């Protein structure tokens, strides 16, 4: 057991969907479910880590306090963080550090969102100093445009086909069929994807993840507390990385107008997206060959293929073959997104990285009914958001 282990005693979600209610409700439900799962009460929680939503007014900016108040002010310590798609992972990182530092024994991590319809857009107001505003104004560079640029690049460099992308959707659609927290639980065929409207060439509607309402929560404790609580072999988090890019960042990401220049300093050995899991593998002392499964951020179908390479399941350029081999399908060597992924959930930004860890927890407990990976021992959850954010979390049985 590493001295960097913490225990995951509880996991809970509010189902993803378009419910039209306040995000606090989703977070509260997820928190209560996670506490019940852990056999603990809100009064046992010493530290609350909230993952913020920036599209739901002031209560969203201070999600930790909002959830603490909704659960009933208890005098717990609190934090609220924001890191785009990695917000949930940073909330886990905050809680983990508190526990490893001995500052608390029991932490609750909560993220929830009520998402707007359609394209994500900048928060209101004229903000010509804000790159996230300018990319819409000057380029019409929506999120799908960035996803499509990466997809087209993959086609040109690695020979990915539209049917490869569609096959990712078909696979994930099937994975999520029995997931009670998934928003979309319906078989999708290659034909369905092929026939869906092109949103941003080469990506079709069914290649791109929707935006959803949802909530997810985790109860994290010290290993000592878990033992005292009678759980001798809890699911553990031995490693978590939130590293930033290394200059020059030569891969184009949201909301950039341009990459960094590699004129003065050569590109780093490891591009940003692969540096994230690399740091986590180093911390955990394991490698991709030790994984039983992975949850990766499939904002688009094509992006899932990039992740195969970034987390080391295959060499660069090998993702299409790996997919076609069936290795990443449930029953294969290394199932990816057994939960159904963003393809079945849609994105509820601050909840998503927490939901990934919920799925890994259930898988490692052997309780992922209808989508269980056999003998799951270790998993990784990765994501990437705007402005140099991303995360990799390793979870072990």
């Amino acid at each position, binding site marked *: 057991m590493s001295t960097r282990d913490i225990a995951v005693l509880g996991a809970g979600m509010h189902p993803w969907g378009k419910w039209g209610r306040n995000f606090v409700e989703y977070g509260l439900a997820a928190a209560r479910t996670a506490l019940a799962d852990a056999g603990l009460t809100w009064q046992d929680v010493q530290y609350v880590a909230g993952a913020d939503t920036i599209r739901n007014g002031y209560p969203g900016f201070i999600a930790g306090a909002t959830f603490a108040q909704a659960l009933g002010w208890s005098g717990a310590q609190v934090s609220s963080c924001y890191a785009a798609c990695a917000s949930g992972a940073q909330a886990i990182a905050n809680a983990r550090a508190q526990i490893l530092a001995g500052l608390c024994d029991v932490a609750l991590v909560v993220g929830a969102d009520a998402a707007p319809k*359609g*394209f994500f*857009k*900048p928060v209101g107001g*004229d903000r*010509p100093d804000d*790159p996230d*505003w*300018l990319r*819409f*104004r*000057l*380029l*019409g*560079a*929506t999120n*799908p*445009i960035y996803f*499509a*640029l*990466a*997809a*087209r*690049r993959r086609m*040109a*460099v690695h020979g990915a086909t539209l049917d490869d992308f569609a096959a990712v959707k078909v696979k994930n659609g099937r994975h999520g069929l029995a997931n009670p927290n998934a928003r979309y639980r319906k078989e999708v065929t290659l034909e369905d994807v092929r026939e869906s*409207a*092109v*949103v*941003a*060439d*080469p*990506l079709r509607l069914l290649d791109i993840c929707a935006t959803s309402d949802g909530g997810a929560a985790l109860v994290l404790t010290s290993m000592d507390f878990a033992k005292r609580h009678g759980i001798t072999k809890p699911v553990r988090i031995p490693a978590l990385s939130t590293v930033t890019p290394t*200059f*020059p960042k*030569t891969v*184009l990401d949201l909301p*950039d*107008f*341009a*990459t*960094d*220049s*590699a*004129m*003065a*300093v050569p590109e780093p050995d490891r591009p940003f997206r692969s540096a994230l899991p690399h740091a986590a593998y180093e911390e955990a002392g394991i490698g991709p060959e030790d994984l039983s499964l992975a949850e990766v951020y499939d904002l688009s179908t094509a992006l899932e293929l990039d992740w195969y390479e970034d987390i080391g399941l295959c060499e660069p350029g090998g993702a299409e073959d790996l997919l076609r081999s069936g290795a990443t399908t449930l029953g294969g060597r290394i199932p990816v997104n057994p939960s159904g992924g963003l393809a079945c959930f849609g994105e509820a930004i601050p909840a998503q990285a927490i939901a990934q860890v919920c799925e890994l927890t259930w898988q490692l407990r052997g309780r992922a009914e209808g989508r269980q990976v056999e003998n799951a021992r270790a998993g990784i959850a990765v994501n990437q958001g705007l402005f140099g954010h991303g995360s990799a979390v390793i979870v072990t049985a």
Partner: protein
Amino acid sequence: MSTTGVSTGRERRPAIQGWFTGADGDVRLLGTRCASCGTPYFPRNELACRNPRCAGPRDGSELEEYAFSRRGRVWSYADSRYKPPAPYVSPDPFVPYTVAAVELETERMVVLGQVVPGVTVDDLEVGMEVELTEGVLYTDDDAEYTVWMWRPVN
């Protein structure tokens, strides 16, 4: 409103000041460049060189005006088939547009831009040579607002 690029006789104004310059045939992206380590920046960086190993003063005094290469090769491209949300100013009815990510050999970086109207994804290929020009992004009652755009080199 129109983004067709057809002149309406209105005044032409850049949609943003100081990001590009020049008349057709010599349109350039404007940015800054670190006089110490040579790193160029687009959009312009006036704060401090962001190369963490730069030996310059890194107080902004090291950053000088820089005009980027006019030509590059398509790194990737995509289009938008649905009307994006504000602050994009869309004509009514919406007109799809194409975006290219272009690799500049000298600067060793990739820069995004809309592609000139009329050029679709079917006309583009990764590796194709393109050059910078200026096009109309949107218009209002007062003026035509222009932005840098990429166009294939014939």
